[in-house]
């Protein structure tokens, strides 16, 4: 039988296949913790919607979130759906690229009520992810896990929903910009200004270089078993500094210093100029 000419149907877009991993931004975590702290007295946990985008390689990038009031009892779960839609509409007005990608809840593990909530969210978006943030630190560590659910059915009967954990990337690069020192402690007295920041970065560099020195010394003296990979890394980084003859380097260096000095000079002249101008402008009247 002749095979039919290849009639390739376009493969279903990645949106329909479940996400393979998740990435969470720091602001989402902060939001979750803040809403947990502010939850109404009778609630045990808080739930809310996650907003973000689905990247083409199957990773879900969670960028924003908002909490949704809900009430939970032993066998019933009620979510304020209007609130959820209202907040979503408001958020869409600001940033229309952030869509619903799932939902979060505080507390450890997945409970029975979660399946119902997950079902609600699967009606909103295909393959929502479920993020649990363990605010109670039940295992003595911060556990943040992401799950996707697949339905287990026997024939036609729907038996249960299985929550599978997917890898979670918590690198939080955006938070690093703000500086982890600010986000880590409960109170930071003063935001560091430029020079203090430079100082701390340079100190860190110093420490790193010291460590590398110590490591190389140890290897040479035989105290530590040499690791070829690290050795190659070190030689690569040292070699990445451009090789300039001392004369060329000095010239480059001096040029840059001159440029900077010019700029500082210009800015001080400007400052003097504006203070003179101001005196002239508000000086006694001509008459």
């Amino acid at each position: 039988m002749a095979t039919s000419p290849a009639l390739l149907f376009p493969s279903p877009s990645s949106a329909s296949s479940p996400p393979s991993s998740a990435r969470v931004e720091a602001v989402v975590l902060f939001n979750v913790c803040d809403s947990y702290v502010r939850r109404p007295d009778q609630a045990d946990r808080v739930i809310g919607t996650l907003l973000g985008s689905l990247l083409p390689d199957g990773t879900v990038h969670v960028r924003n979130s908002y909490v949704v009031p809900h009430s939970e009892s032993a066998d019933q779960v009620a979510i304020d759906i209007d609130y959820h839609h209202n907040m979503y509409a408001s958020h869409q007005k600001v940033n229309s690229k952030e869509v619903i990608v799932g939902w979060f809840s505080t507390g450890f593990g997945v409970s029975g009520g979660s399946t119902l909530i997950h079902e609600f969210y699967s009606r909103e978006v295909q393959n929502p992810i479920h993020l649990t943030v363990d605010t109670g630190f039940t295992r003595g560590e911060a556990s943040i896990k992401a799950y996707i659910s697949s339905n287990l059915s026997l024939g036609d009967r729907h038996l249960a929903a299985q929550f599978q954990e997917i890898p979670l990337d918590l690198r939080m690069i955006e938070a690093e910009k703000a500086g982890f020192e600010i986000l880590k402690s409960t109170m930071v007295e003063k935001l560091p200004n430029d020079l203090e920041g430079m100082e701390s970065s340079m100190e860190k560099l110093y420490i790193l270089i010291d460590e590398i020195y110590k490591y190389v010394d140890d290897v040479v003296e035989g105290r530590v078993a040499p690791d070829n990979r690290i050795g190659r890394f070190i030689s690569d980084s040292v070699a990445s500094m451009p090789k300039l003859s001392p004369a060329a380097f000095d010239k480059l260096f001096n040029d840059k210093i001159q440029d900077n000095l010019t700029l500082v000079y210009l800015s001080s002249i400007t400052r003097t100029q504006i203070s003179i101008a101001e005196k002239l402008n508000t000086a006694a009247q001509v008459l």
Partner: protein
Amino acid sequence: MANRKGLPKPFLCLALVILYAAAPGGMRSFLQAVSTVTEEAPTPLRVVQMEGLAVLKIIKHCEEFAPALVTGQLLGLDVGSVLEVTNCFPFPIREEDDEADADGANYQLEMMRCLREVNVDNNTIGWYQSCLLGSFQTVELIETFMNYQENIRRCVCIVYDPSRSSQGVLALKALKLTDSFMDLYRNNGLTGEKLREKKLSWVDIFEEIPIKVSNSALVSAFMKELEPESPVTQCDFERLKLSTAPFMERNLEFLIGCMDDLSSEQNKFQYYYRNLSRQQSQQQAWLQKRRQENMARKAAGEEPLPEEDPSNPIFKPVPEPSRLDGYLVTNQISSYCNHINGVAGQNFNRLYLMKALHED
């Protein structure tokens, strides 16, 4: 667990459309009674305390839309000499049409209502905006401040500069207008004389307030756990970058533009003074003529004419141009100079570091 409820206050709307949403009737009269009782001078604002959550949200919103300028609302509590910012929400970018005003107001009311349901302090204490390289001192800022000040006792504006943050500095600033400047502005007293009286110069327009950052214990515990083990962060990479030339170039460009503006302002003033003196001399000449006429008439025995003639156009007072623009431009220039100094200082550090490394 703490349930922080801010003081219930009437809802507020975007600066250009001020209306009072209907707070429950009984509460409103209570509030009015309370507000008339406490008339003592408010303690001066010393520090703005921000939650890490608000900081992150502001950074996220501003960076997402850079280089477009965005704004948002700050929510929090006003406690003694500290203004606490506990949350914030962004405003959508508004197109230039009239219906957007009503939409903006609706959006704001909606967000405040929703946030109140989840126990977020929905007390407006100011707004935040992003800016480009520190050029935020504009007349619109002052007007927005005046609008907000009418309704809120203490409000603050937080300015975030995404381009400076690419240098590794967290460029967040909390600003407020000084009281003396606000009084003058309200009474339209921005003339040379009044300013000299009050000894108000361009430094006194804006007041920068130090920012403290606080985090709840829960979130700081999480952050401590999740902190990456590498001792070097993205922040350090950015600080130790050697190529600051594009940033400096843009700063200088803006500086040059501002100097042009400043010189045009000065020209305006010269023109005004010239007009004023010309008018004065015209008035003198006319007065002389009148006096001579009067003497002639007295000699002829007629009524002397009045020595003033308000209908004559040369007596119309020449309006003095407002000094506000000049002051704002001067403020901008000084902030550019500060930036340049800061970056040049960093550059010196980096260059010497490079030299030391090279010699090794």
